[in-house]
């Protein structure tokens, strides 16, 4: 199973820190999994101009293709100006309609204020649903106070991330079985 952990911002360290832990924990619990961490801060990605994702060059092409080849995408996002960052929205804009069909997507949110809790629910999930993702409904919401010097200091947060990973893998495996069963019934 191919897993992409996406750190959706070029700003700050919290989302990156959360995704680093997510990847570390994923690898420990699922040593066989093919995990790629994409931190958008490491890439030079152009804005979507509407072309098919295969037709982009360089970093843009690499990131779009890697995401499209994944079975699971764990998205880490900060909240900026009461929304998801433009860098993350641009990734969605680069991809085709229904890009997340047959993919499981789960969410880790970092935020400066607890007042941002519902933003992923109201702004990120509708995008993922439109793109046909199988969404892990419960996401992990992490606040400023849970970080200290690029580490997560709250065991509760670590436990919640671990549970998110379990739920993500469980849904992906289950969904794959359901899909295989359904597709074999078509007879073509």
């Amino acid at each position, binding site marked *: 199973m191919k897993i992409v952990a996406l750190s959706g911002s070029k700003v700050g360290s919290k989302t990156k820190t959360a995704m680093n832990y997510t990847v570390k924990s994923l690898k420990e619990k699922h040593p066989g999994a093919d995990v790629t961490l994409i931190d958008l801060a490491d890439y030079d990605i152009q804005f979507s101009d*509407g*072309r098919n994702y295969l037709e982009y060059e360089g970093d843009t092409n690499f990131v779009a293709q890697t995401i499209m080849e994944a079975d699971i995408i764990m998205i880490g996002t900060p909240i900026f100006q009461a929304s998801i960052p433009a860098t993350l929205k641009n990734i969605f804009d680069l991809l085709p309609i229904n*890009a997340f069909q047959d993919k499981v997507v789960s969410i880790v949110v970092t935020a400066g204020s607890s007042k941002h809790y519902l933003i992923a629910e109201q702004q990120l999930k509708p995008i993922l649903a439109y793109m046909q993702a199988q969404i892990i409904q419960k996401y992990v919401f992490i606040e400023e106070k849970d970080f200290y010097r690029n580490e997560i200091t709250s065991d509760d947060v670590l436990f919640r991330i671990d549970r998110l990973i379990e739920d993500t893998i469980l849904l992906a495996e289950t969904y794959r079985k359901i899909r295989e069963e359904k597709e074999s019934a078509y007879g073509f």
Partner: protein
Amino acid sequence: MEKYRIDPSKGLEFGLYTLGDHISDPHTGKRISAEQRIHEIIELARLAEQAGIDFFSVGESHQEYFTTQAHSVVLAAIAQATSKIKIASSSTIISTLDPVRVYEDFGTIDLISKGRAEIIAGRASRVGLFDLLGYDLRDYEELYEEKFELLLEINKNEVVNWSGQFRAPLNNAKVIPRPTEGSLPIWRAVGGAPASAIKAGYAGVPMFLAMLGGPATSFKRSIDAFREAASQSGYNPAELPISTAGFFYAAETTQQAQQEYYPYINEGMKLTNGRGYPKQHFAQGADPRDVMNIGSPQQIIEKILYQHEVFGHQRYIGQMDFGGVPFEKLKKNIELIGTEILPAIKKHTAKK
């Protein structure tokens, strides 16, 4: 309709089209040479003519996994190899070509073929050719509109006075050779959506409507929008032919047709578009109300007749060679078309 060389009394025209894709057969992993693929396309047109098929067209795609970039050259070879079948481009990407050169080419193909050439002008669904041929993707819409207008202008007048944004002006420019009947049927290629169909209606030109899959009644909205827009712009919709285009594959039974064609469509789409064809949608395609003409000859006949009833169109063209389908299978399809499908369609749609 006459202007577009269509005689409605003869019933629905049936054609085949290829995008000229050049893809390995997913069953064997082997890809034939570009030379062989091009020769097979020419041979396919010849066999189509023998089977009584009305129309054959070739598209241009400037990207990996395609081989008919110089589609007008391939069409010239087909013109020489055949004598009755209508031949056209599906599509010519007019946005990134010079309409004068396109007209010279197709005027010549019309002379070689003795009056059988047509142009279907499109805008490209993939955009690699903008870089390749030196155009800016940001001019996508305007390049198409301006050059399509110029193409129509050249078709109307042998001597052209014209100026625009994307090409040097033409002052009393004579564009020759002229086609056999003085002008060519020029169609506007339209994707599924009504918004695109309306533009063909505004221009009062015939429309080629691409339909991958979905209920016929959904595509009917685009056809209605086209006719309404044409009417509002002062054209008579009854004089503007409509053609539809979509997947086609016949085998003894519908299940066999699905089994045979699905891997080609799925793998071919993965390579050219980056996403396969969802099985659920493909399965639904067998429904009599869906436009995907994949099935037994009887099922295809019923579907095409149903579509004709809904659309009232003049031509249908099918794409059966997508994704590396081996030539033997294509020949088998042509045989089923010629012996079973075509006679039934003509019988039911020709005006006695």
